[in-house]
């Protein structure tokens, strides 16, 4: 298998998986009635977007984008794009914080309502 073919298959796998993750997450977030499951769905969406972001910076056969002496000595070295990696790192932290806040809110809602079913929590009009 030559490099371009390999690259094509990898691209399909990466994009397919991440879009699949986003769709699964959206399904969980929009259809499920349990607050916990909604939160899980939102975090799956996050992972899907992060994977998608990471895969646009990927190059087949690329190494880590670090200028070490071993890499500089070689000719024609392929490096993956470091910018999406930096972005994903930030996005993961943000997703973590949002999940944390969301779970804290769910705990507070549970203490008051003794349920996490969204249909039974409707003091405010949805």
């Amino acid at each position, binding site marked *: 298998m030559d490099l371009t073919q390999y690259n094509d298959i990898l691209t399909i796998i990466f994009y397919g998986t991440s879009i699949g993750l*986003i769709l699964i997450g959206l399904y969980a*977030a929009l259809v499920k009635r349990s*607050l916990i499951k*909604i939160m899980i769905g*939102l975090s799956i*969406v*996050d992972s899907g*977007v992060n994977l*998608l*972001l990471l895969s*646009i910076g990927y190059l087949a056969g690329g190494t880590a984008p670090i200028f070490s002496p071993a890499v500089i000595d070689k000719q024609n070295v392929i490096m993956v794009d470091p*910018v*999406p990696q930096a*972005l994903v790192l*930030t*996005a993961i932290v*943000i997703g973590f*914080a*949002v999940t944390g*806040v*969301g779970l804290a*809110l*769910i705990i*507070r*809602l549970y203490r*008051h*309502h003794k349920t996490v079913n969204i249909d039974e*929590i409707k*003091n*405010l009009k*949805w």
Partner: protein
Amino acid sequence: MVGTPVQFIAIPLLAAFLIPLLGKIWKELVRITPGVVLAYLLYLAVNLMSYTLEHGRIVEVIAGWAPPWGIDLVFSPFSGFLATLMIFMGFIVWAYSYRFKAIGDYEDYEPTIKYNLLLMMLITASVGVVLTGDIFNLFVFIEILGITSYGLTAFYRHRDGAEASFKYLFIGSLSSMFLLLAIMILYSQLGTLNMADIASKADQLKPVYKISILILFLVAMGIEAEMFPLNGWAPDAYSQAPAPVGAAFAGIVVKAGIYTIIRLIYTLFDVGGTYEYLITMGLITMIIAEFAAISQDRLKRMLAYSSIGQMGLVLTAFGIGKEAGVFAALFLMFNHAIIKSLLFLSGSYMVYNSKTKYLKELNGIGKQMPFTALLFSLAAFAIVGFPPFAGFWSKLAVLTAAADSGMILIVALILSVSLIEVVYYLRVVNRIYFLKPETSDREIQKPTTQAVLSMAVLGIIILVVGFYPDIITGVLHKAASTLLDKSSYIKDVLAIGQTIN
């Protein structure tokens, strides 16, 4: 120059996390620190503003990485005006909540720490949103803004606060997903994250990518800017959050959302049809929100819907385009920040001891709280646009801009929607002064000195701008022309990169 734009982000961010530590030394420092920091930032903002009005925009490079590679902050008359407005509103909100009882007593200062910390973060994030010149940095600030808003919405430990906050969080995280997707498509097509660089390369984008990026962006930011139909979170968040936070949402958070949409449409992409889109969405938002406001029986929900309606008007004004439309929109944003905040701040003292916050509980409160009721009525007259208050000039500017562009239908719609606004605001004023109270033993909460002062300052601004609109219009015209001058933005930012290398 006395300082650089980076201080607007660095100082409040540092102060926010120092607040809990300073509280260990002396409890009162928890309350004093934000005020000192905001006063300094206001001084800095006014100074930089006068510099930038004379010498053009200030572009600051962070950490020595010149644009288009590194992050840059742009302090132009447009972004600087919004930053100054946000810091000023932050200062007012701080002063109002200095001794706000529901936020924390002297003995139990734990909630005060959290409140002040979140408020500082909120201001940091909003100012960051308007100053940054990097689109991913914008995303980060919007997320900080979102998380602090969720926290402040759920500030009161009752179940409805958490419910409103969870709703906001749910919509907010979907919006951040769209924003990240949009940034990702943009990066994969152009290979840059710097806004000036994107703006200069935007015409290389294929139409299909351009349209999908624009749609993703507008959906994501429409949520923050309360655009129809993405504003379901707003009435609940406004009504469940503490009163000063409602003012902060109206004065600070929404402005950041509107700013992002405008920066995107005016500077990044100049796609045909987006202006018409803005007008349509703005008008739909305005009409639906005003009709919803007139049917509300609770004060804060009514104010929240009115706020959404005003944002619709701002979007419409931006959609009219040209210098006149942008000027009118900026004037509206300024007035909305001042007046709607005063409505929230004074209104919340009038329904302070009421559990339900129904409008009918306001009957005859004008005799018991003459000063607060007077300020509320002043703000109500100003926001519907009665002369000689501040709101009149901004509404006049919108109508003139629309009429000059030959959009007579828009003029008619704005005028008829204003009539609805007049009805529901005057209904409240009527209740305050002319109806008999339902119960005679109503307990009223006396506003604290700080609250009275901050409300009085807002009231004075409404009157001064109403009688002498010229003191603000000069700055606004300058800001509007800066926003429309896209090529000089690109040139100024990218020139920094060339001089360093």
